[in-house]
Every structure is written in C-alpha cells, then in structure tokens.
C-alpha cells in the first residue's frame, strides 16, 4: 500500500473510530499537541455531518431537543458512513436508525416522522416537471381509460404510518399558526408529500385515494387503481379523484399500456 493511502486510512481510523495512535505517529509535535490537533478534525467532521442531519430533520430536532439530537446524530454518524462529497444526500437511514435506538423508545412515532422528513428533504431537491398534457389525455378514447398508466410527480411521495405523522409534521413547522392540538392516539395516516411552488407540504389523503395512487405509482393501470380504491370506499368517484390528482400535480404524465 502507498504511504499516502496508509496515512489516509489512519486518518479515518482516528476521526471515526477515535483510535488516534496510528495517525499520531505521522504527525509533528508533542503527544498532547498531536492529540488535540486530531480532535479538531474529529470535531469538524462530526459537526459538519451533524449540521447536515439537523437541516434534513428539523421536526425531529424540535421533538427531541437539540441536546438529544446531537447525541443521536453522533451515534448515527459512527454507524452510517457518509458516502458522498455532497452533504445533502447524507442521512437517508436516520429513520431506520431511530427505530431500534433504545434512548428513543419512549417516542414510538419518531422513526416514521424521520422517514417522512427524509421524503420531504428529497422532494425539496427533486426534479422539476413539465405541466400535465391535459389536451393529450382528452384525446384518449374511453375504451383505453382502463389501460392508462400515470407517472407520479418526481417531487411527490406517498407515505403511510400507524401514527398521525402528518399532524405531527404540520404542527412542528416554523410557519404553523393554526391549531396546536395533537392526538397521538388518533391512529394511522396515509399522506402525500408534495412540493408546491418550491415549498414542501404534507397532506393527509383518504385511505381509498391513497391506495389508488399508490397502485398507480407502482406502475399499475388506472383500472387496477380503481379496483383497489373502490374496495376501500365503494362511493369514491374515480374520475373525480383522477381530476384532483392531475389538478394538484400529483400525477404529471401518462401513457397507455400495451
């Protein structure tokens, strides 16, 4: 192995495994001096990664407080290496990390709130989309309606949870001024994450609509999506629901399956 690679590996061990001896032997200075010099780099790396997590998970910060969040972030950083020079993609597994994290066991909804925040983070940076080709849809003959397939807006995501994560998310937004009441036992939520005018919103959808959209988003035809939605709510008007999804730009394109 090259001397340079050797040194870089030793640097990684010193910063992320807190074993400084190997790096210290490469450095100039007294033993104590070398130790605090390494600590500067350790603190820099942890604080850069921790700030990235903080900006991706503002609701989690509010829910657990800054001190607990910093502790959780440090644990996450030691277990989930950053794999990109772009800090915006760091933190994807924070929800999965929180699920079995014993100090967070008192807040069972926390992992799902984190998963929802990651979807919001991704939606914020997702690709822009062209306007829906409504004219083209109007030209589709009625006998082909069942074979229509739709494309979900790249800046949209569907999420379901056993907890009212939409309400938790909404009341913890900085600009939230409405009702603060939050009933944690109010049960499951089916939500759509959506970027509107560059701002990300989280809204609840009726379960029937959510399941229909979910079917569409996983490549099923409109006929299948209608079946799924009508099984949950026989009174749903699928045509009206489709119009809403298009108007709200949840769906942005379509094709006709063979």
């Amino acid at each position: 192995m090259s001397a340079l690679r050797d040194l870089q590996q030793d640097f990684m061990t010193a910063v992320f495994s807190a074993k400084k001896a190997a790096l210290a032997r490469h450095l100039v200075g007294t033993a104590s001096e070398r130790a605090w010099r390494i600590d500067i780099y350790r603190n820099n790396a942890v604080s850069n990664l921790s700030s990235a997590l903080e900006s991706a998970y503002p609701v989690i910060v509010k829910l657990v407080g800054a001190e607990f969040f910093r502790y959780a972030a440090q644990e996450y950083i030691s277990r989930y290496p950053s794999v990109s020079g772009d800090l915006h993609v760091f933190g994807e597994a924070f929800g999965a990390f929180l699920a079995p994290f014993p100090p967070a066991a008192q807040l069972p909804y926390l992992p799902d709130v984190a998963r929802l925040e990651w979807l919001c983070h991704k939606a914020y940076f997702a690709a822009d989309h062209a306007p829906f080709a409504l004219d083209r849809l109007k030209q589709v003959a009625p006998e082909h309606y069942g074979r229509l397939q739709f494309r979900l807006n790249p800046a949209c995501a569907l999420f379901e949870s056993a907890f009212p994560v939409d309400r938790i998310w909404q009341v913890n937004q900085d600009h939230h001024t409405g009702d603060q009441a939050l009933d944690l036992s109010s049960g499951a939520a089916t939500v759509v994450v959506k970027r509107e005018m560059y701002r990300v919103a989280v809204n609840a959808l009726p379960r029937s609509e959510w399941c229909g959209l979910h079917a569409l988003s996983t490549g099923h035809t409109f006929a299948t999506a209608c079946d799924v939605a009508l099984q949950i709510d026989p009174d749903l008007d699928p045509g009206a629901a489709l119009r809403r999804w298009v108007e709200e730009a949840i769906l942005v394109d379509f094709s006709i399956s063979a």
Partner: protein
Amino acid sequence: MIAKKLRGRVARPIPSNAGIGLRARHYLDILSAPPAVGWFEAHSENYFAEGGLPLYYLERIRSDYPLSLHGVGLSLGSTDSLNIAHLRKLKSLIERFEPGLVSEHLSWGSVSERYFNDLLPLPYTEEALTHVICRIMQVQDFLSRQILIENVSSYLQYRQSTIPEWEFLAEISARSGCGILLDVNNIHVSAVNHRFDPLAYLHAIPAGAVQEIHLAGFDNSGECLIDTHATAVCDDVWTLYGHALAHVGNVPTLIEWDTDIPALPVLLEEARKADALLQEVRRERSA
C-alpha cells in the same frame, strides 16, 4: 425575455473586483434589490440537485451576475479512484450555468469510499505531488476546462512532508496547468498555526497563476486558529491581502462567510473594502 435567457448562457468572465459567496439566506434580498457587487460564487455541491428552489434561484442570479463555482466535496487528493458520479454532476452544472471560474481544494476528504465532508491536508511529499497533479489533469480533462486549486487551512503537520506547501502549490500549477485560487485567510491561519512567514509563502506563488483570491474570517480556539468563515476578515488578513495584491495584481476577490451568516449589507461592506484595495492597485499599476 429571450435576450435575458441568451445572456445567461454565455460564460461571463469574473471581473477583477470583489464578489461574495452565495448563501440561501440572501437569495430574496439579492433578487429584490440586486446589490452592486461584481460577481457571486456558489458551492457546486449546493446545486447538485435535479430541481427545486436552489437551482431556480441560481438561474435567476446567474442571469444578472457573473458566477464562479467552488467545489468542497470532490476529494481531489484521495487515493480512492475519482468519484465519477460527482464529476458528472459538476460537469452538467458547468454546462448549465457556464461559470467564469471553477475551483477545487488542495486537500482530500474521503478514503475507502467513506467521506469526512471536510478539507483534510495532504502530506507534502513527492508521492502526493505526483498523485495530485495526475488527479487535477484527470479532472481538467473530464471537465474540458482549466480549474483553480485553493490552498486550505491546516491544524496539523505531517512528519513525512518534505516540500513546503507554497512550493507544492506552485509545482502543482506549473505541472498540471491548473490556476491558483489563493486563500489569503488560509495562509494567515496556517502561518500562525505552523509558525511560518506568510510573506515567504506569498512570494513563492507564481503571480501569473493566481486567478482568484479568497478572504474570510477565522476563530481562535485558544490552541490554534480555525478557519470557520464565521466572522469578518481581520486586520492582519487585510494587510496580507494588500501584500498579495502587490504581488499578483488585480485579481477577482471573494468574501466568504459560511457560518453564522450575517445580513447581506455586512457582506457588501466587506466587499467594498476589498474593492477599495483593488482600486488602489489598479491606480498604482496604471500610473
């Protein structure tokens, strides 16, 4: 509208006056009352997204100002193979925004595919020199353009280093054809931390290679100076900047402020100070 769009697509050279680092908290202020500042510099990775608000703002600001792109995550000096996915994103950003200058750091930040997301110092050895030159040439080749390389602040020194940093930087530029982004604050920080003469550093740098200067603030941890970009430029750095301008002439100068970011007028005031010094040099050189 079309004229505006076209204008945005042509690479506009970075003028030899002061620019400021583009930060999200200033987007609205910049657009609502475009400030009298020469240019903006954006961190490349902040615009790696596929869409959304940051790109929208960058597009609008780019149509009114020259832009430079400054990378913080390429990990140029790493012994891992170059991150091609990262380079591809950088390349498409360059194609879209046509920046006047593109810069990276003389540092490394990842090994075995784990990233520190920090700018780590290299040992100044013959091995590292050859490695970095080779990497810069690969990057310039991939991007089909010259890049500038910036000296970083450091808080430690390696026993194996045999080449002074200033010679290392000069040699890299001579052999890879890259330009130099001279960070005057980083020279000051490292000079204090490692007790060398900042003027000796400055005068070892080939004046013709320097195409941009960075100015920023640092913090004192008690044990050493830390390059935090969280404060105003200090008097010692302004003085050193004066020496730098005397050595390299009029060079586009960036005010960086990336942490505890103040209101836009504070940055503009710093830029005005840099512009005053740049103007002095211009007068002296034309006299």
